[in-house]
């Protein structure tokens, strides 16, 4: 229904030419373009928009666009969408109510609301734990009831973009204050962006244009609407939701013009549908041309309520009564009197009622009337005993600044006794608070102060000298020290998200939770989706009175980002999970490799389909033993060192000796951490007197490079370090035929066994590409590592593959390599060692330079060496008929843990099951039996065996 709207100029945000249908709780509703779901529903006469969190009370609209969480609805798979900020668009998914069984008006879960008196504050803490085990039984039922909307189980994630914006001055909030500040800053020469949450800038000026005639952004101001600033972080980073994009805004200065949240008056049943804030009623009238009710009662502690009453009257809403808690009159009272409206002074609301029949009694329903009370001394109230019939109660209990952004940046928010509201202090220099966020409400004052602040912000941003701007004192007269009317029967809600009443807060204080933060945690006040925007003031007042303190005596809670509930998909943005590819990645794919994750890399595990793993791996191993195989080892860390001190530098770091390493030779290298634990290993080749080439394991490549540069920076030695990990590709060609295959492609290197010996390094050309060749033996066969610029990795790989075809060359993957090296009992750092393994424990004491006076971890090893070894890494064999123990199976000694299996596999070449394991030193002798416990619990026997398991004389790799 779109009839019944007020005529223009009402409805400033509407496009009346276009109606938009949508579905709510199964009913078809028609709204207008420019409507929110809430305004359209209200126009259509829908009054129950939600059910409350705890007591499942029916709720309508409290605020409109006020960042409260009263009218949360479900949009398709998306829970907890504020109906008053959800714009009507074509194709909106069906909108449903939340937290109800059945329908919103007849929620079969409403019974809980009748048990309120049995659910005192913190009642979970006091109950459900005796006898033991009670909670286990009761918690599932409580979990089922908790929560608001429903998160769809199979929702998907559409990736959102991020926007990076830069400006001199960012103004948050497009009301009169924000516009004045933005215009002033732009006029002063600053580049300005103005962020406004609503679809159009104007804020309060859209409601009351007469009060703010100049509230139009100037041409020089970039206006972004539908923009919610969520956090102002320490380094000046302003996070803004920009529709479906996430904005990261760098502004030199930020003007906080986010306004203030109107506060409810706390009285019995102030949460009934149809009881709303004056600002909500005015927004419905002026922005959406919706008459919020037919007959209204207005209850207020300030002029804003009176202004709303005038608006209602003008819009044709009958006014049953206006109750003003104050006793003095002003021009607004006169104007109301002229309009024939009855205004009762010194009068407050006492109880809102609903008489919607039997169903209303059980399920609750919209407001049908209100009883007032006259104010006595000390906040007492004497009920009048008469009912004012109405379908709308409009209230104004004062204002609380929405100053969270300033607080994120370090400002403090504390109670100001003169203005009876929160006030900012300690605002950092790059942040300016203006308008209602700074406690100002009088139009001329607001605009004047905001202009000044905008100018100052521009000056500060542009590096001009700024006079220190004293932040304005909040204006008195807009708030009331006690807009709270206790009722003997309770239900005076001061925290709508959590259904908390006056008694709940008083009782929490009595239980000892008297600090603001403790009170919040115990009572849950401020923990809900609105984060207490409409509650914090009242909670503070009630707590203070309960403690017989002034409100200043109780600090408010810390305001943390985000400003209002923040979309996770926007924060996540486009998933950025970098992946690294080696130069040969395309070949691996062409060969049908099954890959595995190795840090940022994706390495071939074997070549073939996953179902084929076993056969593929065996064939690859066989190729290396009998013909030749080739593996991509580009993921190895590759670090180049040049300089006169290079040898001395490496020698000071690695546990292995390198000072006197001959040119043209490679050497195994072992790196320890400062506690003497094995950290990394590799090969160091000396290419020239002052030129070294160092490899590191795939996993440790970055850490080792970082360590070398760090130590070089500390020691200031004459050496340059370059990380070539990405710049170089590398492959290892191994097997009896590898020399033959290589021979056809190599220039400048004599491959003859006597000329290019095991552990030699050479410069040369392979397939025409300048390369470094290292004769290494990790897999236990004759083999060469070839390192070349990554740009040529693919070419060299292909050339070798072509040349090797006639010799049975096969590419092999990580799995085959693991087995091949296990046959040689070569340790994999991180698999056969853990973070706390010494060289002696790993049976690698041989690698530590005995005469060296300096290497990382030496001091620690000296200390640890004085204690007996606790464990030793040994090779073991098992009966061929046994099952291979999964890696990490425990070695059991007596009934204690004696160690664990670190590697194990069945090896055809070694004839049975072989492996490496930590065992107690008493078990380390060759031939010692020991027991392994499989994950299934079964015990199996193993025996310490000599290593290498394959080719013990190393004749194959050194031939």
């Amino acid at each position, binding site marked *: 229904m779109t009839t019944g709207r007020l005529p223009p100029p009402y409805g400033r945000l509407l496009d009346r030419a276009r109606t938009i249908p949508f579905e709510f709780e199964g009913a078809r509703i028609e709204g207008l373009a420019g409507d929110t779901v809430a305004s359209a529903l209200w126009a259509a006469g829908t009054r129950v928009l939600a059910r409350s969190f705890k007591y499942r009370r029916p709720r309508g609209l409290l605020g409109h666009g006020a960042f409260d969480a009263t009218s949360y609805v479900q949009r398709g798979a998306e829970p*907890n969408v504020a109906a008053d900020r959800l714009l009507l668009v074509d194709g909106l998914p069906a909108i449903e109510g939340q937290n109800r069984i059945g329908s919103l008006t007849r929620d079969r879960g409403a019974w809980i609301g009748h048990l309120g008196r049995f659910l005192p504050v913190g009642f979970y803490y006091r109950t459900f734990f005796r006898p033991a085990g009670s909670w286990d039984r009761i918690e599932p039922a409580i979990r089922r009831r908790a929560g608001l909307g429903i998160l769809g189980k199979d929702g998907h994630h559409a990736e959102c973009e991020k926007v990076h914006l830069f400006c001199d001055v960012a103004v948050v909030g497009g009301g009169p204050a924000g516009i004045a500040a933005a215009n002033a800053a732009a006029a002063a020469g600053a580049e300005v962006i103005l962020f406004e949450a609503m679809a159009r800038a104007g804020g309060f000026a859209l409601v009351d244009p007469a009060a703010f005639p100049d509230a139009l952004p100037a041409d020089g101001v970039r206006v972004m609407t539908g923009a919610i600033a969520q956090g102002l*972080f320490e380094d000046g980073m302003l996070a803004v939701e920009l529709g479906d994009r996430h904005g990261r805004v760098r502004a030199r200065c930020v003007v906080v013009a986010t306004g203030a949240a109107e506060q409810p008056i706390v009285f019995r049943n102030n949460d009934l549908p149809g009881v709303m804030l004056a600002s909500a009623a005015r927004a419905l009238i002026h922005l959406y041309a919706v008459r919020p009710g037919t007959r209204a009662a207005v209850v207020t502690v300030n002029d804003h309520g009176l202004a709303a009453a005038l608006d209602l009257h003008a819009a044709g809403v009958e006014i049953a009564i206006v109750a003003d808690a104050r006793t003095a009159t002003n021009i607004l009272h006169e104007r109301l009197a002229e309009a024939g409206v009855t205004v009762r002074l010194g009068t407050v609301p006492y109880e809102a009622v609903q008489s919607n029949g039997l169903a209303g009694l059980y399920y609750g329903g919209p407001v049908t009337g209100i009883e007032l009370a006259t104010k006595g001394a000390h906040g007492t109230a004497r009920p009048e005993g008469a009912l004012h019939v109405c379908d709308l109660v409009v209230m104004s209990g004062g204002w609380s600044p929405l100053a969270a952004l300033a607080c994120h940046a370090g400002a403090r928010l504390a109670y100001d006794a003169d203005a009876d509201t929160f006030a900012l202090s300690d605002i950092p220099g790059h942040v300016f608070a203006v308008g209602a966020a700074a406690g100002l409400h009088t139009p001329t004052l607001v605009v004047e102060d905001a202009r000044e602040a905008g100018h100052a912000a521009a000056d500060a941003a542009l590096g001009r000298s700024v006079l220190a701007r004293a932040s304005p004192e909040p204006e008195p007269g807009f708030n009331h020290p006690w807009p709270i009317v206790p009722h003997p029967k309770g239900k005076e809600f001061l925290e709508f998200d959590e259904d908390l009443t006056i008694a709940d807060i008083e009782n929490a204080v009595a239980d000892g939770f008297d600090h603001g933060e403790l009170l919040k945690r115990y009572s849950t006040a401020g923990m809900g989706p609105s984060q207490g925007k409409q509650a914090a003031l009242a909670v503070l007042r009630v707590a203070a009175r309960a403690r017989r303190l002034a409100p200043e005596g109780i600090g408010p809670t810390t305001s943390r980002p985000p400003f209002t509930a923040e979309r996770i998909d926007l924060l996540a943005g486009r998933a950025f999970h970098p992946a690294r590819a080696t130069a040969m990645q395309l070949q691996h794919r062409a060969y049908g490799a099954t890959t595995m994750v190795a840090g940022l890399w994706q390495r071939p595990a074997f070549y073939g389909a996953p179902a084929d793993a076993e056969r593929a791996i065996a064939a690859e191993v066989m190729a290396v033993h009998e013909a030749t195989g080739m593996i991509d080892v580009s993921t190895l860390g590759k670090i180049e060192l040049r300089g006169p001190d290079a040898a001395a530098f490496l020698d000071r770091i690695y546990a292995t000796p390198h000072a006197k390493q001959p040119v043209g030779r490679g050497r195994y290298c072992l790196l320890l951490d400062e506690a003497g634990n094995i950290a990394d290993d590799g090969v160091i080749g000396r290419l020239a007197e002052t030129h070294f080439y160092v490899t590191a394991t795939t996993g440790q490549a970055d850490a080792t490079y970082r360590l070398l540069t760090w130590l070089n920076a500390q020691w200031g030695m004459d050496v340059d370090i370059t990380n070539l990990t990405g710049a170089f590709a590398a492959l290892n060609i191994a097997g009896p035929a590898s020399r033959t295959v290589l021979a056809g492609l190599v220039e400048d290197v004599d491959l003859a066994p006597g000329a290019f010996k095991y552990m030699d390094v050479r410069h040369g050309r392979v397939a025409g590409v300048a390369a470094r060749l290292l004769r290494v033996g990790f897999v236990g066969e004759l083999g060469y590592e070839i390192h070349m610029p990554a740009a040529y990795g693919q070419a060299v790989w292909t050339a070798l593959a072509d040349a090797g075809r006639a010799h049975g060359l096969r590419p092999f993957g990580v799995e085959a390599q693991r087995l091949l090296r296990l046959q040689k009992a070569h340790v994999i750092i991180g698999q056969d060692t853990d973070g706390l393994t010494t060289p002696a424990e790993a049976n690698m004491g041989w690698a530590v330079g005995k005469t060296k006076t300096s290497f990382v971890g030496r001091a620690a090893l000296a200390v*640890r060496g004085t204690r007996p070894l606790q464990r030793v890494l040994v090779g073991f064999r098992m009966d061929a008929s046994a099952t291979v123990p999964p890696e990490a199976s425990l070695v059991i000694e007596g009934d204690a843990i004696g160690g664990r299996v670190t590697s194990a596999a069945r090896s055809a070449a070694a004839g049975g099951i072989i492996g490496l394991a930590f065992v107690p030193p008493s078990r380390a002798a060759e031939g010692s039996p020991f027991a392994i416990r499989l994950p299934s619990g079964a015990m199996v026997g193993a025996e310490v065996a000599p290593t290498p398991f394959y080719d013990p004389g190393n004749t194959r790799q050194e031939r």
Partner: protein
Amino acid sequence: MVLSLLRYGLRRRHVPWRVIPPTPDRFKPSYDVVIVGGGGHALAAAYYLAHRHDITNVAVVERGWLAGGNTARNTAIIRSNYLTPEGVQFYDQSVRLWRTISNDLGINVMVSERGHLTLAHTDAAIRTMRWRAEVNKHYGVASEVVGPAEIAALCPELNLSHEVRYPVLGALYHPPGGIARHDAVAWGYAMGAAARGVEIHQMTEVTGFDIDHGRVTGVRTTRGTMRTGRVLQAVAGNSSRVAALAGFRLPIRTVPLQACVSEPVKPFLDTVIVSGSLHVYISQTARGEFVMGGATDPYALYAQRSTLEFKETLFSDMLELFPQLAHMKMLRQWAGLADMTPDFSPVMGLTPVENYFIDSGWGTWGFKATPVCGLTMAATVATGKPHALIEGFALDRFARFDQIGERGAASVGS
């Protein structure tokens, strides 16, 4: 219980249930023990001193509001699937204490054994998990490596597709793992300790110590000096700074650790899910909110500020695991200060200062240890000798390079 509620509801006035005792106006002439810090660990130690060792002339000194440090900021995960024998036995004792804690303290701490899954995305991670599982089982702790099918049964909401950067290969499943109401445990210990006469001084900061010939004799605070025979320091993120006041150094770096919470929704996720490789973890509270966290910040800092980058990386990774969360909104983010040790195990026991005991190095993992820390530290303070369960965690282990390596089991997921 239901009866007591009925009685409560029918009564006209609230009968205060004094949980947190008021801060006394002045100090006693002397105390047997002063506990520095008023977090969960400190309050638990006070409780066990009073209840198990009859030492009741005790003052707990907290610089802010009660238990407002990491006790109020953690993500409340409880588990015992650690890696080292020392760790597993220690945390297992804690899990046992959690089982009866609500009854023992007379307050519902809402301990909820929801099952805990640590996801593995690499074969190296599977290996470490199997190691943990085997060590756990050896000490009687339920823990098992499970594959994708079992994961899907335990957590159907999890994205097990291979169309992501780091597919899930397996997980360590730990049925006793779960969550609790973090604040309530501190309140319960405070209530129980106060019932035995322990004093709790909130808004009182310790600023120094009186040390006479290497022995502590007094604690200086912003409200005057307390005379005392023994001191227990339990200040988590502030450990190195308070130890410096007592004149000794700790091998501890303080690093911010952040977390956040979403709006409440109906039950969606039963188990606690942790991914070590993606550095994220998540659970859903009884209120329906998702509590989420990640790895520590990359640098040492004492400021409890939150950052935008934390949220961005957290959610970018989280949506790989739970794409549905794209429809959620987050409500609040915060940071605590994690006191990190080199080996990811705590520092507990004696110190170079006589009669000065320490409970520190709790990093990102100390909430679950609250009961057992209280128990063992109370025994240590009462007898002057480290309790058997904490001998391995002595400060001087670092001088001996005798670390208790829990990195593989403690680095993410608390």
